[in-house]
């Protein structure tokens, strides 16, 4: 029966392609809301993609249609109408944005000022009509030349599809398959752009790669797709995000990030994300439903995820490591802050397959005001993973009376010759601690910052230096006024 329907559907699909061909006007720059096969073909065509990728997307769409939106996470939001979303729009016409910073939410401007963001950059972030891309264009070009000398490929994924199809074809969807989860399937069908990075064998990437330097940055936000491959004996550190609260008209963000590390290769992936969290009632904030996974394919390979999450009204993400190679290592360091009415359900998965694989999980959740913070982590030791070790530490810090912290560690151990350690703690910033600091002359706000920074130290030290400083400042600004 099932077989039959599938065959039927496939037939229908094959015919459809034939029947309708390309009906959407490819000259138009923005699609009306709605999702169907034509929309996907339109996107693929707009990007000038080869046929295999169009088919790959359409298959993802078929899978997605049969899936249901997951609701197991400890988050609460009104139903999303996927047909009400527009899945493609070309870079915004300059005249559509606010005319000047005067038209932008003053609270947002205040935050920019507190973070010390220069005026021109504020305008870009707030979407003010300025022609500011020129600078980053030239920077990016020199930057890419330097990388090319080492054989490092770093470009938009849409470009990689054309320039390096063999690599994209080999790795795309190899870590996060299309049927992995609802949002990954959706992303696979409709992703518009993202980063592609390949580090050849024996190469240490000469600089930290940051999305900031990527050409074509605009309008890739909603369904971003990132693919990073570190070949044998290579090393790369990749920085994602921005400390400034970035406004975006698209409420739903469903990105996919795939990392592949071959023998003795190491990938460090650091994120400081500060999507607009919404106002005090949580209105207008971003839903960040992202799938991030790294595969330690080679022996003695290593992948480290470090994240500082302060934004979004809802965060649903579990950067994970699949440890195939013997002696491979996975690490996850996370600070997640939920203030206002923010909800975060985040954590990691460490899947041990190879022998003597090691994983470390350090998760720091901070809840303030009405924020709800959930840690959800899974450690799976497969039968083959003799000598595997995991250390997990999940700490929660509560500020105020109305917030909450929740911890859901899942352990699945199929090999008795493995070792797992789990520690968890929940603490509150005590009035006695604040009093003690104040009695030494430190103001209440500075006292909270001191304590919060102390709490996050183990994670901050995993971040590249400048990023760590920014992250610290970001937490301070995000927590401002949350204790009264």
């Amino acid at each position, binding site marked *: 029966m099932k077989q039959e329907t599938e065959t039927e559907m496939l037939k229908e699909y094959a015919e459809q392609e034939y029947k309708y061909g390309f009906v959407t006007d490819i000259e138009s720059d923005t699609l009306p809301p709605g999702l169907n096969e034509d929309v996907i073909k339109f996107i693929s065509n707009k990007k000038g993609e080869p046929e295999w990728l169009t088919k790959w997307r359409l298959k993802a769409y078929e899978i997605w249609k049969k899936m249901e939106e997951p609701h197991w996470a400890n988050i609460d939001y009104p139903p999303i109408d996927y047909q009400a979303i527009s899945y493609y729009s070309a870079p915004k016409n300059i005249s559509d944005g606010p005319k000047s910073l005067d038209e932008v939410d003053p609270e947002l401007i205040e935050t920019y000022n507190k973070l010390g963001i220069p005026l021109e950059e504020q305008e870009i972030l707030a979407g003010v009509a300025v022609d500011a891309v020129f600078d980053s264009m030239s920077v990016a070009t020199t930057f890419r030349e330097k990388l090319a000398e080492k054989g490092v490929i770093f470009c938009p994924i849409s470009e990689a599809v054309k320039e390096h199809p063999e690599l994209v074809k080999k790795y795309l969807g190899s870590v996060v398959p299309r049927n992995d989860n609802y949002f990954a399937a959706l992303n696979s069908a409709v992703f518009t752009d993202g980063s592609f990075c390949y580090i050849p064998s024996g190469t240490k990437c000469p600089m930290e790669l940051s999305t900031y330097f990527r050409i074509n940055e605009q309008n890739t936000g909603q369904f971003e797709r990132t693919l990073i491959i570190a070949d044998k004996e290579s090393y790369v550190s990749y920085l994602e995000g921005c400390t400034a609260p970035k406004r975006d008209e698209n409420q739903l963000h469903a990105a996919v990030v795939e990392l592949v590390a071959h023998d003795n290769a190491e990938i460090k992936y650091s994120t400081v994300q500060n999507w607009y969290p919404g106002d005090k009632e949580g209105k207008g904030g971003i839903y960040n439903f992202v799938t991030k996974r790294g595969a330690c394919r080679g022996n003695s390979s290593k992948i480290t995820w470090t994240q500082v999450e302060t934004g979004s009204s809802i965060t649903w993400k579990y950067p994970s490591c699949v440890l195939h190679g013997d002696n491979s290592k996975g690490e996850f360091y996370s600070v997640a802050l939920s203030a206002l009415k923010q909800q975060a359900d985040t954590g990691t998965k460490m899947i041990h397959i190879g022998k003597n694989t090691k994983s470390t999980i350090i998760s720091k959740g901070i809840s303030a005001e009405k924020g709800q913070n959930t840690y959800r982590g899974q450690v799976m030791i497969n039968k083959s993973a003799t000598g595997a070790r995991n250390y997990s530490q999940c700490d929660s810090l509560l500020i105020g009376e109305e917030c909450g912290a929740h911890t859901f560690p899942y352990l699945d151990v199929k090999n008795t010759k493995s070792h797992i350690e789990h520690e968890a703690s929940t603490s509150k910033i005590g009035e006695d601690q604040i009093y003690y600091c104040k009695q030494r002359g430190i103001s209440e706000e500075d006292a909270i910052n001191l304590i919060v920074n102390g*709490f996050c130290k183990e994670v901050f030290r995993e971040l590249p230096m400048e990023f760590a400083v920014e992250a610290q400042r970001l937490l301070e600004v995000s927590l401002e006024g949350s204790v009264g």
Partner: protein
Amino acid sequence: MIKIENLHVEVDGNKILNGINLEVKAGETHAIMGPNGSGKSTLAQVLAGHEDYDVTEGNVEYLGKDLLDMDVDERACEGIFLAFQYPVELPGVNNTYFLKSALNAQRKYHGESEIDAMEFMELIGDKIKLLNLKESLLKRPVNDGFSGGEKKRNEIFQMAVLEPKLALLDETDSGLDIDALRVVAGGVNAMRSNENATIVVTHYQRLLNYIVPDFVHVLVDGRIINSGDKNLALELEEKGYDKIIEEAAG
């Protein structure tokens, strides 16, 4: 320096202090002694500005200002230091960084520039010797995992760095062995000058052998029932609180 007049204090509706009068001048050291529950620690906390204590009556004038009108951190910046009976732990917060933050907050309050790292290290180097503190304690989180004695020494170390005008020592001797007591008292004594004053709150006379007070006050049921010089402390030790209370009543 500080003048306390008719101070009445309640906690959750319970009367703890019932009309305290006390004046402490610059250069003086006063000891407040009393049985458990007499209100000694309350007096220290009220002067530091703890929110749980409600002042229902009375005034406190400190350096010509209304002390009760100031917030906790403002009082600290104005030179009031409380050495806690139970120092609070701040996990993750580096001891040195904490102290530097405190010192800079106070300097900022007085319109002075922040102390630079070199200068600061020099300053604490001197003070740490004074208190015979292990250097490793500087790198550890504030009071986290410290022994009882280490915590008390750390309090006096902070005091030595912050150089307060009015130091309040709340049961600083509790939990200290005799050697540590000598070191801590030595630290306090080294800081005594004509410019500052100290109020020592203690149950036992022992500490006063090392920090010799100019005045001793006996606090019972929230009132000072007897005042004298250091000999009063010795008398108290000999006779016990009950006897002194009886005598005061009679």
